[in-house]
């Protein structure tokens, strides 16, 4: 199908789950009680995506807080994270590397399998990339950042292999930090080769906070089949850089802005889709929001996705109608 629709990964957590997470952190409810609620919420998110009509689903990350901390807290070698402010009144628990990183059991597998069991549509397996894991952690153990990144790459590779063996059609390894230090892009590329080595699944990497000018076309060397990029938030001003040299991978294009409360109109989103049709080959384009939806309310997230899916559908119909007209013309001409 042309222009399949998907999302980047996270969905907003329902109020009962937010509350349960607080209670769990205060040791007022058990791990099992929390897990039941995470599964309940996952079920709702899968159902919502089917209802909206998305083509490739995500499990919604109901069990995760921060995308780096979630994995760090489940890996050997990381110590207890400390609270650090990122901006305004927002804080995150920044992991601390205290020793060699080892994985004792699968981390992402269980929730992936659960979510995939609920739907015949493909669900993406979601991982955080080794470069971002390193960049968003303190390092008290490794001599160099490279040593840490390559150790993390091995661990994320094991996670990816588990998802692959469990039948994931798509495995997404997010690297939002990749544009932070353009001088380290070769390291991020080296690490991704380790992560995706030998996978059967289609691989995706989401990159955001982007000044793509500093990392394009180098980023085309990242060992994934698809790059998932944000465009709507910057009003597509960065689109032109992808013309030369030509983009060689599949691309998932962010056509709705996840940082604004405002729901885009269908016409606006259709315009956005038309803009990218001029730059990327049609058969390589996927349609999705700019970034994870967890900072929106569930209502806003749903409304944005409905508009997006509807806009993609209309563009598809317009294009096949145009295609039919063109064929008719050609038939007339030959006669």
């Amino acid at each position, binding site marked *: 199908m042309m222009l399949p629709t998907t999302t980047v990964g996270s969905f907003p957590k329902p109020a009962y789950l937010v509350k349960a997470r607080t209670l769990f952190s205060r040791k007022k409810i058990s791990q099992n009680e929390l897990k039941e609620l995470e599964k309940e919420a996952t079920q709702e998110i899968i159902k919502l995506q089917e209802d909206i009509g998305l083509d490739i689903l995500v499990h919604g990350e109901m069990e995760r807080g921060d995308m780096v901390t979630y994995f760090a807290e489940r890996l050997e070698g990381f110590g207890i*994270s*400390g*609270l*650090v*402010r*990122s*901006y*305004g*009144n927002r*804080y995150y628990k*920044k992991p*601390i590397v205290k020793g060699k990183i080892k994985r004792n059991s699968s981390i992402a597998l269980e929730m992936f399998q659960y979510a995939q069991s609920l739907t015949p549509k493909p669900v993406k397996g979601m991982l955080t990339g080794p470069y971002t894991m390193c*960049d*968003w952690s*303190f*390092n*008290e153990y490794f001599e160099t950042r490279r040593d840490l990144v390559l150790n993390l790459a091995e661990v994320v590779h094991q996670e990816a292999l588990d998802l692959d063996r469990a039948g994931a059609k798509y495995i997404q390894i997010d690297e939002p*930090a990749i544009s*932070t*230090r353009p001088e380290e892009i070769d390291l991020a590329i080296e690490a991704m080769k380790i992560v995706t080595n030998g996978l059967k699944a289609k691989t995706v990497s989401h990159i955001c*906070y982007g000044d793509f000018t500093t990392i394009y076309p180098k980023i085309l060397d990242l060992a994934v089949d698809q790059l998932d990029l944000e465009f709507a938030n910057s009003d597509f001003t960065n689109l032109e850089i992808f013309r030369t040299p030509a983009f060689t991978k599949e691309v998932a294009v962010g056509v709705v802005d996840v*940082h604004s409360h405002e729901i885009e109109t269908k016409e606006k989103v259709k315009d956005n889709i038309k803009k990218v049709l001029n730059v990327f080959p049609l058969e390589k384009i996927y349609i999705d929001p700019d970034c994870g939806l967890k900072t929106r309310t569930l209502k806003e997230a749903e409304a944005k996705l409905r508009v997006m899916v509807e806009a993609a559908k209309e563009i598809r119909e317009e294009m096949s109608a145009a295609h039919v007209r063109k064929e008719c013309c050609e038939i007339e001409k030959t006669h």
Partner: protein
Amino acid sequence: MLKTTVVGNYPKITEDRSAPNLRSALNKFDQKKISKEELEKVYQETIKRVIKEQEEAGVDLITDGQIRWDDLVTPFARNIEGFKIGGLIRFFDNNAYYRRPIAKSKLSFKDYSTVEQFNFLKQNSIKKVKAVLVGPFTLARLSKDEYYDDEDELTLNLAGILRKEAERLEEVGAEFIQIDEPCLCFSPEKIDLVDQAIKIVADGLKAKTFLYLYFGEIKDLIPGVFGFQVDGIGVDLISRPENLDLLLESASDKELILGCVDGRNTKPEKEEELLSLFERVTQKISDEKIYISPSCGLEFLPHSSAMAKLKTMVQSVRKFNHTEDD
């Protein structure tokens, strides 16, 4: 004797659940659950705690921890006519963000940004205190210019506005004023412009003035930056370890702030390593001219780590000075 100072910001919240919590107070204020006065009380309690922690650690020259600042630029931009505050942008190579000021029209002084904060610091501290200003070039470079279309003109205009702030700080009793210019490290070709801008801000002030350069290298700024019209230069020896050799090779009569405790990583410093660094430096430069400090503000660290690092820093300096009983 070596002295100690800090660069500026400090963690706003602690792991201690019984301490006043600015984070939750700000959340409650946003949800209209507490009044402006109640929020103000938490601000003041927090700043007093931060002052006390630096004093108890034994730092000689302290700040208020910039507890009321969201970032380095918006506290100033909000008080400059002609700036609008824009979206979030990554702050250098940190996983931390600032709101980008946008110059929409001619910029002019609207109100003082830090004078009341400085007064509060002075009244509540028994130590020497330092005021901190964003540098005019760094403020210009981190902003979006939709009016001047000329970074030099924007920088010099901002320098004039910051001059007013510096003069007022001096009037209310500031004896130490630090100007942060991290952006200069990444654009050494702008050194003449920044020299001119710093002159506008600091010329003729009686207060002792420092220029602090963190996150970057000083290779192409030496010896030029030693000709700047300030009393001292602060250098980050962690982000760029080679900065130390550059300093030691150059002769200057300026005072120095040496950022040699990592403000961006929790890994604890070793006392013996700091001591050998102090040895090395004081063989070339008189210890009377040197302040030891973290490499940048401490807010990139969790509170417990920030505090531990301050203690290690002061203890090492005391050991070096043979004043351990202080």
